[in-house]
Structure formats: structure tokens, C-alpha cells
């Protein structure tokens, strides 16, 4: 490594976790103030300019101090869950720590789903909750909840503040922990009596937590071993996960693919990390990935996993997953390595730094794996089993979701737009057909699969990225889970565009009922309520309903040309299913519903004979084994 480059790398290590703001150089340093003012001063010292929240009795002093801040813009949500998802969407879109501020009791408990969502997807958040005064903690006082206890398994770390003197250090630590290592949510519970205590504000720059020292630099010997495996591979696959986005390693991962000619699969969390336009990018993988991407991953002889965790949505039935592959697993979290799949070469470290070293090592040993035959094999699969094809016969006169998502993709400039999804069928269609060129431009609840995440997250992303157009692809079910945030968007004039892929059903569960439960549509049909256009009107949004395929593109154009928030009610038939699909409980080789161009572009979805019975019986087992709501909702 040239000396100057080494210098930069070193300084990045030193900078890791430092405040984005002025830290100890903040203008309030050394001043006397109340605990509440110290919390605001701490957020300012961290460089926070935006927070999302909802006041209440035990948070009122913090809100009173906030009233004087010129640096902090507070966005008033309409529900605490909305506030946390908004902070999360802001964090995903900008890369900064998202901040949410709520009151005690129900205010705090309403944040739990939001915190769990961020935890599963490794998103840095600091959530500040009001708490009842220290003297009455534990006495079941009004609006008291043990939020530290309740969230213990879904936070990276949490604090119950017991003294106003601890405020500055605790906030510094919380921000440091949230954004370093494997990022995650940190909760600070603040009893209201310490908010009025007087202290001298001394904000530290550094933290001293001897028990928290993430490993950033990969082991050199392991990196050399990985390089040798890559050089010798003939059927390698690069498997890119959300860690590539959080460590800012998109350029390195793309370069690795290009330099070594390695086909690449991308998880839902990493969509955008490798440009969709890159021919080596095979796109979505796993349960609703393309048949060719799944075949490539499953038949590879080397998997280079970068910031990915072999989720069950990616691997399918695990004992049949990629039987011939060796694994190089790069992750900053040692607990992910070997958790699901044994790694022949485990590398604990920051993906970006490890890939920098790996690229250097590959260049040094002049690695040039011969992947030509492998790539042409994959190309053959790609041609034979396309993700979608216009030749497929569809119901006449109805909007086809796959086509509508492709049209949306074409209507969106990759540089200046962010796509956020809710959870369900529309999410999978968006992941399959909306192209993205840049990281942090496709945001989705991957791990927890939280319906109601997407719309508030889109609001947060839009406020955090004022220069970008944010489009939320929602389902009619998901959108109704947090639609109170329409008021937040309207009042703050957040120009978020919501495309409701409207099938009047909980489409993903309904699809499972159709395929695996004999069409018994138990509790999945939503009926035609509400009238989304009238609803949008009630909130002062622009809106339109589109029902004919020939009107979709013009409707997108009108939506994108309209200033302010806008809802497009895109009516699709109830019966559309997301394909291809790895049969639940099945391995990646058991793909149903793929299009076979060699067989007249038919979607082969219908069960045939023995194989089907196997899927059906496995489904029930899998659903029991992995958790009742296997497929999302």
C-alpha cells in the first residue's frame, strides 16, 4: 500500500465512531445547564440536525429544551412507531445515525417494532425514551414501562440513565456504539427527574469502553488464503449483503466482481450495492430470486460472502444449499461467521477494508480465475429462464405488476431517486424489477419483514435527502399499517410518492394459501376499503387511481411531475402471484413458477404429481419450524 493511502486508511480507523458534529468543540461546552438542555446539547454536539419524535408527560422537559435549539429540526410523527421508522429510513438513506425521541410508557412501547426492525437490518439508531422519575421506577406509576427490559433482545445496547452527570458520556457512547462495528439501535431511557438537575456540560470526543472493540482489519493470512481460493475457483459467486452497504464497500465489491469476472448475487439488503446495469450482477437471489441466480449460487464451487448472513430467505432448505461450494465469509460480526454455514476462510473485519486488502492481494498474485465457461453457462440459464418476459399470457386488460414495476424503473432516474418498499408481494416485485445503480437507493425491511415500515421510512428518507425523489412502493395492506404518517408528510410538505400496488388482499399470504393451503383464503381479503384517492384528498395529497395497463406510464409521469406528497392507487388483479419462488422448505434447486423460454414462455406454477405433494407436505413442516408467518404478509 502506498504511504499516503495507508495514511488515509489509518485516519479512517481513528475517525471511526467520532461525532459528526463539533464534539467537545461545541459552543455549549463548559456551560451550566439542566439535564434536559444537556440532552439537546449532546445531540447538537453529535452533529444531529434532524430527529423524529412524539412528546408526552415524561419527555416534556426535553421538548421544552428542544424549543430553543436552532440546529435541531424535529419532525412530529403521528405515532411513535412511525417516528422510529422515519429515523430508520433517514439512517438508511443518508448513512447517518437516525434519532427518535419519545415519552415513557406507551410512547416507549410503541417504538419496539421500529427498534426490532432496525436491529434485524443493522441500522444505526439512537432512541431516547422518557421515563418516570427515579424515585417511582418499579412502582407501576402512570405511563411507566420497563422499556430497557422489553427491548433487551432487539437493541445493540441500552442505557437507563441514573444521573444527569452521565448524560454527556452516555450520549457519546450511544452514538459511537450505534454506528461502529456492526451498526444497530441503541436506546437511552431517561428518568424525568434528572432532566431538571443542574450540571456542567462537558461533551467528550472519545469513548472508553474496553469491552467494546470491533475488529476492522482482516487477518492478513486469511486474506491471502481467500485470494488463493478465488484464483483457483472455476465457478465462483460473489454473494453481497447489507454489510457492503453499511461499510461503504460498493465500489470494492463491484471491482472484485469485474476484476475477477465473478458473477454476483445481491440480497434484498444490498440492492443497489452492485449496479443493476452491471452484466455480472445476477440480481435477486433466494426465495423470490431469479432461477438463474439461484442456480448459480447453488452450483458454485466458491461463495465469497461479503456482509451477508446466509439468511433462510436466501439459502432455502439449508442441508441442500450449495453442496459443492467452499465459503469465504467476510463479516464484521464474528457471530455471523459459521452461524449457519461453515466457512473455509472466515475473515472478521470491515468489508471495505478487507476487500481493499483482498483486491491488492489478488493483483499481487496476478490472480485470473478462468470463469468464462461458468459465465456462459449462467448466460444460458439466464436466457432460458428469464425473470419475466412480455410473452407471458396475462389477464386481458389488467395491470401486470411485473410490467408496471419495469415501467416504474424506467421512469426513475437512478441517481436522483430512492425507492422504499413495504413488505409483501409488491416488495418482491420491486426487488425483482426496479433497477438500482447506487447503494442506499433501495430501502426495505429485510430481516424483520415489518409491514408498515416502508411508508414512514420513505418520509424519513425524503426529509433526509431533500434533493432526491423518494418513491414508496406499498401494498394496500402494509400502507394501512402506518398511514397516519400521511399527516406528517403533508404538514412538513414531504414530497414522497406512494405507489399502492392494490390487490385488495394480503397478497403474499394469500398466494401461500392459494399454492399450499388449497385456496382457503382465511383472513387475507381486505375488500375495497378505503378509497385511497379520497383518503389522500383528506390529507391534502395529490392522488390518482389507475386501472388500465395503457395508462400506467402516463400516471407515473404525472405523479413524478407533481410537487408535494402524492398517492397512486395502482389496481392489479387479486390473483397475481410472485414468481419464481423457491418452494417453502425446499432447496434452491426447487424453483416453482419460473418462466421457461424453451417451453413457450409459460409460467410453470401449477403443481405436477409427486413433486407437488412433497412441496405441500414440506410447507407445513417448514411453516412450523421457522415460525408461523413464514412468507411475510
Amino acid at each position: 500500500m502506498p504511504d499516503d493511502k495507508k495514511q488515509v486508511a489509518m485516519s479512517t480507523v481513528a475517525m471511526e465512531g467520532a461525532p459528526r458534529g463539533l464534539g467537545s468543540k461545541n459552543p455549549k461546552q463548559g456551560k451550566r445547564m439542566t439535564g434536559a438542555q444537556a440532552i439537546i446539547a449532546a445531540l447538537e454536539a453529535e452533529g444531529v440536525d434532524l430527529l423524529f419524535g412524539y412528546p408526552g408527560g415524561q419527555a416534556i422537559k426535553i421538548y421544552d429544551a428542544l424549543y430553543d435549539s436552532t440546529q435541531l429540526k424535529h419532525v412530529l410523527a403521528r405515532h411513535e412507531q412511525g417516528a422510529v421508522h422515519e429515523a430508520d429510513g433517514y439512517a438508511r438513506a443518508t448513512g447517518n445515525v437516525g434519532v427518535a425521541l419519545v415519552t415513557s410508557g406507551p410512547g416507549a412501547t410503541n417504538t419496539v417494532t421500529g427498534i426490532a426492525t432496525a436491529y434485524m437490518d443493522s441500522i444505526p439508531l439512537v432512541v431516547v425514551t422518557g421515563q418516570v422519575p427515579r424515585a417511582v421506577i418499579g412502582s407501576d406509576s402512570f405511563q411507566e414501562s420497563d422499556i430497557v427490559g422489553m427491548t433487551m433482545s432487539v437493541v445493540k445496547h441500552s442505557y437507563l440513565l441514573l444521573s444527569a452527570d452521565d448524560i454527556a458520556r452516555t450520549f457519546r457512547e450511544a452514538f459511537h456504539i450505534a454506528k461502529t462495528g456492526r451498526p444497530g439501535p441503541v436506546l437511552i431511557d431517561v428518568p424525568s427527574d434528572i432532566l431538571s438537575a443542574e450540571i456542567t456540560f462537558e461533551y467528550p470526543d472519545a469513548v472508553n469502553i474496553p469491552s467494546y472493540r470491533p475488529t476492522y482489519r482482516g487477518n492478513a493470512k486469511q486474506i491471502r488464503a481467500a485470494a488463493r481460493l478465488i484464483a483457483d475457483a472455476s465457478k465462483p459467486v460473489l454473494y453481497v449483503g447489507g454489510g457492503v452497504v453499511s461499510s461503504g464497500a460498493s465500489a470494492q465489491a463491484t471491482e472484485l466482481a469485474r476484476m475477477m469476472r465473478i458473477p454476483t448475487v445481491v440480497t434484498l439488503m444490498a440492492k443497489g450495492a452492485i449496479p443493476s446495469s452491471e452484466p455480472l450482477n445476477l440480481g435477486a437471489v433466494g426465495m423470490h430470486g431469479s432461477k438463474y441466480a439461484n442456480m448459480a449460487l447453488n452450483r458454485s464451487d466458491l461463495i465469497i460472502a461479503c456482509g451477508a448472513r446466509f439468511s433462510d430467505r436466501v439459502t432455502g432448505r439449508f442441508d441442500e444449499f450449495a453442496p459443492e461450494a467452499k465459503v469465504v465469509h467476510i463479516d464484521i460480526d464474528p457471530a455471523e461467521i459459521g452461524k449457519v454455514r461453515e466457512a473455509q476462510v472466515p475473515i472478521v473485519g470491515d468489508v471495505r477494508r478487507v476487500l481493499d486488502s483482498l483486491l491488492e492481494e489478488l493483483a499481487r498474485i496476478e490472480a485470473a480465475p478462468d470463469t468464462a465457461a461458468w459465465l456462459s453457462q449462467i448466460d444460458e440459464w439466464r436466457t432460458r429462464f428469464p425473470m419475466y418476459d412480455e410473452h407471458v399470457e396475462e389477464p386481458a386488460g389488467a395491470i401486470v405488476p411485473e410490467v408496471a414495476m419495469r415501467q416504474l424503473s424506467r421512469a426513475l432516474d437512478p441517481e436522483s431517486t430512492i425507492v422504499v418498499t413495504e413488505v409483501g408481494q409488491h416488495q418482491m416485485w420491486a426487488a425483482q424489477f426496479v433497477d438500482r445503480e447506487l447503494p442506499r437507493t433501495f430501502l426495505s425491511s429485510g430481516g424483520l419483514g415489518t409491514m408498515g415500515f416502508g411508508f414512514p421510512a420513505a418520509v424519513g428518507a425524503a426529509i433526509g435527502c431533500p434533493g432526491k425523489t423518494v418513491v414508496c412502493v406499498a401494498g394496500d395492506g402494509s400502507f394501512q399499517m402506518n398511514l397516519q404518517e400521511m399527516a406528517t408528510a403533508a404538514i412538513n410538505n414531504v414530497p414522497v410518492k406512494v405507489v399502492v400496488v392494490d390487490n385488495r388482499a394480503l397478497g403474499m399470504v394469500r398466494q401461500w394459501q392459494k399454492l399450499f393451503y388449497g385456496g382457503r383464503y382465511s383472513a387475507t381479503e381486505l375488500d375495497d376499503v378505503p378509497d385511497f384517492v379520497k383518503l389522500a384528498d383528506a390529507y391534502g395529497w395529490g392522488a390518482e387511481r389507475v386501472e388500465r395497463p395503457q395508462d400506467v406510464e402516463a400516471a407515473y409521469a404525472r405523479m413524478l411531475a407533481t410537487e408535494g406528497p402524492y398517492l397512486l392507487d395502482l389496481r392489479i388483479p387479486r390473483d397475481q402471484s410472485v414468481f419464481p419462488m423457491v418452494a417453502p422448505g425446499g432447496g434452491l434447486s426447487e424453483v416453482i413458477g419460473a418462466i421457461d423460454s424453451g417451453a413457450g414462455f409459460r409460467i410453470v406454477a401449477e403443481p405436477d404429481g409427486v413433486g407437488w405433494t412433497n412441496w405441500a407436505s414440506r410447507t407445513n413442516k417448514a411453516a412450523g419450524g421457522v415460525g408461523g408467518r413464514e412468507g411475510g404478509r
Partner: protein
Amino acid sequence: MRATKNHNVLSVLVENRPGVLMRVVALISRRGFNIESLSVGPTEDPTRSRITIIADVDDEAWEQITKQLNKLVVVHKITDLTDEPSIERELVLFKVNAPAERRSEVIEIANLFRAKIVDVGRGSLTIEATGDESKMQGMEDLLRAYGIREITRTGKIAMSRNSKEE
């Protein structure tokens, strides 16, 4: 407490602060494992406590528990004593039926195991014993013949025999 193939012993050095034990225990139970024995106490450094955890799980699960515990910000150091030469001790209190005519027999058993009689009742004796698992088991088996009214255990504590330990 029966000895099993996968008798795993972890010595976990943690912050000595409220809520720390809960974080450690919650993490283990969240992943579906049953703790067989647990003991906690302060160490030579008053800011640190040591938790000794014993659980019977397979190796893969054990590795995962260890790694997950290491991620807790309150955990300083984990020493896996499962395959290390180590000393394991536990203090057990037995309350045993001991009518006057059989009292001397019970006392003799206690003496054999170098245990102490700490309380004498009209028809019972309370014995304090320390030792490793097999010794405690052997004592329990012998005392059973007299009728054990109550057993309380401290949970095991462990320490490695070698000197490299922090």
C-alpha cells in the same frame, strides 16, 4: 445434576452494574438454551463481576452462545473452561432426616466427605459441603437413604488451573 457429554463451562467477566446479569441470561434463553448452573459474584476488581455458566448444549450452539455473549457491550472477557484443566466447586446445603438413633451415622457420612454440620434440629441435621460434581453426587446418594428434606446449591464456580488466565 448429571454429568453429560457436553458439559460446557463458561467463565464470563462482566461489568459490575445493575441489569448486566439479565442481559447475559436473556441472551442465552432467547436462543433457546437451558442454563444448568449459574453463579455470580464480584471479583478482585470491584468494577467487574464474574459469572460462571454451565449448560449442556452441543458444540455448535455453544460456539454461537460464546460469540453472541462476546457481542454484549457489558462483557469484558469470556473464558471457555469446557476443555481446559480447571477447578470446579459448588457449595451445597443438605437438610437430612436424622432421628437421635441414626444421627451419628449421618455425622459420620458428613465427616467422610469433609463436610460440616451447621445446624442441628430435633430430627434433622443441616450439612454444608463443598466439592466438585462427583463428590456432591456421591454424598447425595448416601444421604438419600436417610431422607433428604431439602437441598440448596450455590451453583458452580470455576477457575482455570493454568496461570495464563488474565
